[in-house]
């Protein structure tokens, strides 16, 4: 058996590797032939080698099982890389920086003068009903006026090849460690392809992250004490928390490792006694951060942490309250937000979005549910949404009731024809839908990961890429064009 690219279906969707039957995209022309030459047996053997490597490296994620327990699963990974030409990536990178810069200005404005509301561009009612707006944070000036230091934005490509931003994650976005590990595994299984195509490196992310965090330190010093704060080993992203702490050479702390003293300074308990902490990269939701300020029953947090942050004695990344922009209704306003704060047009477009709070949009949504994807404003992980084309009539009816009851809490978008990438299924290469999550760092300067985490829906026809729901991932190669010219 051999791979025949002429048989590969690429008519219905935009494929990232295959432009037309038998023909690769410009940047990867040679790659199709290379994969063909390796043949299916060799590809399957290398996929198995990758699976073994992942198991041995202990790359896992945690899922919550129905019985309430947790299970550690090894990370599902497909070895065929997703490829983006560097010139295209540079435009995306500029667009992401623009977007996050505007969002940071927007968040800062919401916690201060709320000019955008006074100027009538953003409805006060959206803010009033925001579940992630934290009144406790009003009037605070975080270092560098930056609230979302680490942002993960999800990008998708539609049938005509346009790249859209699907959502922005400004609370505690995860996935970057898998991006880094995917690259390590790919280097192990495809050394020859790697050498030939020389994708741009991704591995400086941990040092960029450290620099971003260190820049926030309230005590300017050569060695600020930066720590990563995790809810603990049962969190689904614990692997990543530990990984990033290790890569940055920082302590990985839990709430019980920290305490706030009478002078509102934060300390960690160490073998040597108490040690002052300057910057906390917290991977724990706002509401669990500080039982004094938020949920009193939270055992994960540190009493007094918000006090210390307000006093400017410790930096928190992301800042509490940054999640106010992590709302799918706010998302729908991002083009206006960019225009308002930066006086510029968005470089990467939003997916056209119907805000159900607006009567016309609500009517349209209710009339066209079958064609739309309807999402609640504040869920992540693909939960609680309706995928119109894949839904039953009774599901749509039930969902319509939910939307009518609380229109502010819903948006609707046309069902996109997500692009595909060849993926090893059994003994063949078949197209599977992908998205892309790059990470944007913002402090004294902005940096974007080289590519990001490509997530792939492993089930045929599925558009759900979340790892908790049967998704996998791929390495993402940003390829300099000149390597093809050589």
């Amino acid at each position, binding site marked *: 058996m051999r791979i025949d690219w002429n048989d590969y279906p690429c008519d219905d969707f935009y494929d990232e590797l295959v432009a037309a039957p038998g023909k690769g995209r410009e940047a990867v022309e040679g790659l199709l032939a290379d994969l063909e030459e390796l043949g299916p047996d060799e590809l399957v053997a290398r996929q198995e080698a990758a699976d073994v490597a992942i198991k041995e490296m202990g790359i896992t994620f945690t899922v919550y099982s129905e019985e309430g327990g947790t299970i550690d699963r090894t990370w599902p990974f497909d070895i065929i890389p997703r490829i983006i030409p560097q010139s295209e990536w540079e435009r995306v990178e500029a667009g992401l920086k623009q977007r996050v810069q505007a969002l940071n200005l927007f968040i800062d404005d919401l916690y201060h003068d709320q000019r955008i509301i006074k100027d009538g561009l953003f409805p006060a009612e959206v803010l009033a009903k925001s579940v992630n707006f934290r009144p406790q944070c009003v009037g605070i000036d975080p270092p560098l006026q930056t609230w979302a230091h680490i942002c993960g934005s999800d990008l998708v490509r539609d049938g005509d090849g346009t790249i859209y931003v699907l959502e922005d994650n400004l609370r505690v976005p995860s996935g970057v460690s898998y991006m880094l590990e995917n690259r390590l595994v790919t280097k192990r299984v495809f050394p020859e392809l790697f050498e030939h195509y020389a994708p741009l490196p991704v591995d400086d992310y941990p040092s960029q992250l450290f620099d971003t965090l260190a820049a926030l330190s309230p005590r300017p010093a050569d060695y600020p004490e930066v720590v990563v704060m995790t809810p603990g080993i049962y969190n689904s992203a614990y692997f990543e928390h530990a990984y990033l702490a290790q890569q940055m050479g920082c*302590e990985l702390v839990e709430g019980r490792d920290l305490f706030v003293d009478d002078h509102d300074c934060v300390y960690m308990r160490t073998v040597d006694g108490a040690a002052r902490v300057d910057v906390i990269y917290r991977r724990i939701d706002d509401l669990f951060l500080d039982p004094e300020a938020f949920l009193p029953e939270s055992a994960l947090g540190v009493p007094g942490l918000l006090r210390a942050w307000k006093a400017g004695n410790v930096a928190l990344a992301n800042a509490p309250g940054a999640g106010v922009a992590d709302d799918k209704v706010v998302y729908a306003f991002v083009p206006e937000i960019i225009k308002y704060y930066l006086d510029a047009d968005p470089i990467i477009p939003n997916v056209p979005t119907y805000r159900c709070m607006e009567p016309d949009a609500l009517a349209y949504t209710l009339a066209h549910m079958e064609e739309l994807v309807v999402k609640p404003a504040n869920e992540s992980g693909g939960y609680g949404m309706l995928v119109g084309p894949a839904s039953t009539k009774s599901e749509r009816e039930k969902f319509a009731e939910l939307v009518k009851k609380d229109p502010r809490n819903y948006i609707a978008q046309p069902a996109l024809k997500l692009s595909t990438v060849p993926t090893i299924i059994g003994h063949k290469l078949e197209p599977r839908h992908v998205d892309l999550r790059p990470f944007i760092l913002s402090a004294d300067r902005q940096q974007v990961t080289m590519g990001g985490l490509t997530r792939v829906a492993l089930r045929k026809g599925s558009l759900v890429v979340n790892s908790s729901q049967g998704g996998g991932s791929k390495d993402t190669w940003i390829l300099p064009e000149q390597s093809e010219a050589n």
Partner: protein
Amino acid sequence: MLSRVAENIYWLSRYVERAENTARIVTVNANLLMDLPKGIAPGWRPLVDITGANTLFEEHYKDYGERQVLKFLIGDERHSGSILYSLEAARENCRTIRDFVPREAWELLNELFLHAREQLQKGLTKGGRHSYLKHIVQSIQTMTGMLSGTMLHDQGYDFIHVGRFLERADMTTRIIDVRSASLLPAEATELRPYETIQWVSVLKSLTGYQAYRRSEQIRVQRGAVLRFLLQHDAFPRSVGHCLDTVRASMEKLPRNEGPLRVHGRFKRNLEAVVPGRLSHQQLHAFIDELQVCVGELHDEIAKTWFPPPPEAQSQSQSQG
């Protein structure tokens, strides 16, 4: 270093050492039983006695047969001394401190645990047991070497040492206790040759036969073996050597006055006797005393360097 991390490293080290020790005593017991005549062979029960988990054992098994004891010691996840439980606990402790343990060591431990679990049924058969246990001992030795060769020799490594050698001292005292108690009746002179075999097996449980030969250069006999296993300063599994290593590491740690004081008392107790002169009864009482010392030293270490237990935390916070 975070107090919580120090505690995890310490337990990682103890559990790994426990898994290795258990694998060793099972192997040696199997060999011993082949050498002794059926009538006097002590069987498998002493191994459960060594772990001190007889109550738990009797809850779940009806007799001390080979299959039951092996299942209990190797693969019973309800038993915190079983190899599988120890490896899993070591892995869980290691998982929370991955930023301290070299990546290769984590991968090795992870792989070892998965292997031990997947191959368990094979490990419980007579034919598969030997290579199963050998793999465990060798992997742990490899891991020890990796830590020694690649881990930063800072406080974390000191806690590795403290955990490993305290666990080892604990196991050595347990082995001596059980093995000497189950020895042959003194009057049975016709069984003399077997007495030597049993003392050899005590040495072998601790991989100390060859070292004993080189160091003592006399035949294997009770008094010399006991002194060797309890007080020898160069044999790496003797209680004395373990205590010296624990001390050397604790001396490098901050705020060590309390633990060093308790350690000093422990060491004085150990040196205060000539073990060969102790009767069976006295030896047993002496070992009990050493076991209490192990517990006291652990408590002092925990009090000094590990996080306060949850209910005590709010108190220590208000003291700033």
